[in-house]
């Protein structure tokens, strides 16, 4: 199949590559760019393991063709670490509150949490539970994930306040 020229910004870096237009974004990220944080749990948009941030929206990268993402700005979990390489706030809070076990849902879950907290910086428990309902976790029972996201909200808000 003929290939197209794809350009996008991934985690702040401009990337260019040749890819079949039908290539799924998740495969493009994982196979071509070797960004293996986002995972594949179903390929049918049910599990959210492949969640990335695409132009400010949480999308399931298994259901987006690379052609649709041409020119887009993409953030994955790898892009959420601090500049000095230390864990970002949400990543740290997931660790602190034991919000992960096997870690397979974690990149998608954290990427979703990242956007959720931008959409709603002071979410209630219900808001969090509803806001991550597109991301399945088989290991944790969500209780500690919810805690981790609530704690992230607090930490991020405290950071913001301190900066003001």
């Amino acid at each position, binding site marked *: 199949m003929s290939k197209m020229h794809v350009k996008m910004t991934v985690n702040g870096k401009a990337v260019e590559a040749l890819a*079949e237009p*039908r*290539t799924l974004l998740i*495969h493009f990220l*994982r*196979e071509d760019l*070797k*960004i*293996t*944080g*986002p*995972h*594949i*749990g*179903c*390929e*049918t948009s*049910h*599990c959210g*393991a492949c969640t990335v941030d695409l132009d400010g929206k949480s999308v399931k990268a298994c259901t987006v063709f690379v052609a649709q993402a041409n020119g887009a700005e993409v953030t*994955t*979990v*790898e892009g*959420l*670490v601090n500049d000095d390489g230390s*864990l970002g706030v949400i*990543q*740290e809070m*997931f*660790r*602190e509150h*034991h919000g*992960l*076990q*096997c*870690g*397979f*849902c*974690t*990149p998608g879950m*954290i990427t979703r949490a990242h956007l959720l907290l931008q959409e709603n910086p002071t979410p209630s428990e219900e808001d*969090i*539970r*509803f806001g*991550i*309902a*597109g*991301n*399945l*976790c*088989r*290991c*944790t*029972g*969500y*209780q*500690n*994930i*919810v805690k981790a996201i609530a704690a992230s909200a607090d930490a991020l808000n405290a950071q913001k306040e301190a900066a003001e």
Partner: protein
Amino acid sequence: MNEQTLTPEQRTANLKGMGTSRKRVEDVRFTQGKGNYVDDIKMDGMLFGDFVRSPYAHARVKNIDTSAAAAVPGVVAVLTAADLEPLGLHWMPTLAGDKQMVLADGKVLFQGQEVAYVIAEDRYIAADAAELVEVDYEELPVVVDPFKALEPDAPVLREDIAGNMEGAHGPRKHNNHIFTWEQGDKDATEAVLAEADVVAEEMVYYHRTHPCPLETCGCVASMDKVTGKLTLYGTFQAPHAIRTVVSLISGLAEHNIRVISPDIGGGFGNKVGAYSGYVCSVVASIVTGKPVKWVEDRMENLMSTAFARDYWMQGKIAATKEGKITGLWCHTTADHGGFDACADPTKFPAGFMNICTGSYDIPTAYLTVDGVYTNKAPGGVAYRCSFRVTEAAYFIERMIEILAIRLNMDAAELRRINFIRADQFPYQSALGWEYDSGDYHTAWDKAMKAVGYDGLRAEQAQQLADFNAGKTRKLMGIGLTHFTEIVGAGPVKNCDILGLGMFDSCEIRIHPTGSAIARLGTISQGQGHATTFAQIIASEIGIPADDITLEEGDTDTAPYGLGTYGSRSTPVAGAATAMAGRKIRAKAQMIAAYLLEVHDDDVEFDVDRFVVTGAPERFKTMKEIAFAAYNQAIPGIEPGLEAVSYYDPPNMTYPFGAYVCVLDIDVDTGEADIRSFYALDDCGTRINPMIIEGQVHGGLTEALAIAMGQEIAYDDMGNVKTGTLMDFFWPTAWETPNYQTDWTTTPSPHHPIGAKGVGESPNVGGVPCFSNAVHDAFRSFGLTQSHMPHDHWRIWKTANGLGLHG
């Protein structure tokens, strides 16, 4: 502060040893997307495999035409059974002593069965080409009901063993019959049933479901033709067992095979068995000389690798009119699908179903299990379960509730008067197990008090009165469970899989500067082994957990072990870890004594050092001892400080717990709203409370899924009706409740650190608890048994059948 002035408490805290909620070391990688799972592996020239699968549940395969597929640019080869046959690899042995087709050999026995394997340069080409393989099927009559499979004129499913009436587990009664397993005393139990004041009888069905970890199964096989070495990366819960099996079936020498389990995205029993994908990938790599990756998609996962449960349990329970249980009888019809691929220890074809007397002192019992072939996927794996203990616990916890209804007794009280008493341990059960330790009454009373049991019953009565008065359409249900687990398989004298004894192992090396590396025969799939096993070592040897690297899953470096499933890591490998630590400590003691110029017996271990007895200011820290072990000539002592331990457990461990679920059922919509869930677990000594709590949350959520909707359902044609996450219920954060956890601690007397294991308990106890709550809501309307899963539709039907819709 220096070594001298720190208090023992401070020194203990520095170790982050057993009992502390140490943060997980794994998480630093996982939270930034730097895990290394099988599908993350990329190798030069790597090819991709994909299967052509049967759309039929039972059919003859008359012809396979691979020419169009093979002609697709980028396709390297297409394998069928005919290609594997000369190598003797078209069938493979199962863990249960049966054999299974690797690729369809003349017929298919379940929908989704592997028929051909396409190898191509990328996964898209492989998938495209798989579509082009032409298979000529002739449909055969389908049997999905195990009772119908045993009818005299049922179609013969396994023609390869037709007429062979001696199976791997004794005589077969029918061509679709696999085995009969018999435990306990038949005559005595029948006599008790005949004379009992009360006998409650019921069919209890635990439906077919699936472990469905978020990461599916997969592997990368890489044959190096120059060295003759095969490296096999894969989602293996038992890497060493896989190495041995690969060696036995491929003829490659075991030293030329290196099996590596990298990070695993959840296992829950799905990743114990050997699957066609592994065999085909190995063959493809040997043939092509290139690495070959195979990763199943979700639909393939749900349809073909590893179902769980599917047990029809006919039960009779006998009691006096005061409620003292006198006997238990059970006949189980076990649906194994097209091949018997259970992962049970060899001598236990129905796993530990004979733990079905549960937490109760039942003097007489009898159990038979008939294994049956049907046109469904093979598996029968221990899904978050120790070999059928989940089925057993569900059975007895339902039978208790049913007996309570018959006796018109409170189900909590009925349990209480039948519990094995603390003074009866070690307790010999009627079906052959020796329970190591327990204190059920204490746990139960603590649970009842914590939930305010009497108050809940009063509230329920009020809500029922309101319901009857037309003031509400919601019924309140109170689900109770007291389960006893049996984990840590197991003693080599009676536990083996394919002849491999079920011991486990740990090797510890202390480095000269006092840090360490430990390697185990197990493999974490989210349990946090790198964190918790280091804690055991920290407490045993006195080296901070943060200074210990833990490695698992590489058969070239790790000592041989049987892997992680059946909650066996802590009971078996955890014990091996403690024992290896003690060997090191024993040597360290001699070194310390030499350095301190006293007799070996005159030094004693104190947190992170050896001190001279009676003179605590004279000591040598483990760091100093480690340095001396490598760098000082000590007469009569070899240099170095390392040890390996292979631990053969003397007995299983028996964790237990008391759970209470409160829910409201809307009789008009069939919705069940979980109001609260209280889980008290006793897993013996607690290594990392944070991780235990996380395991309980996760296990309860899988229990919620199973009890309330998750199933692998088939239609009469053998089509899988729940093959995607759209139909296969997996609770989201939205429908999952918060859980309240609690504990008591009754150490295992035979385990070096008293730990029993916890990963499965919440699944074992959770399913009956949710299910009992649903049943309890309808108890006053005469419901005794309605089968799981209790999804909205089934609950609505129950309500309708009881006349609650007016």
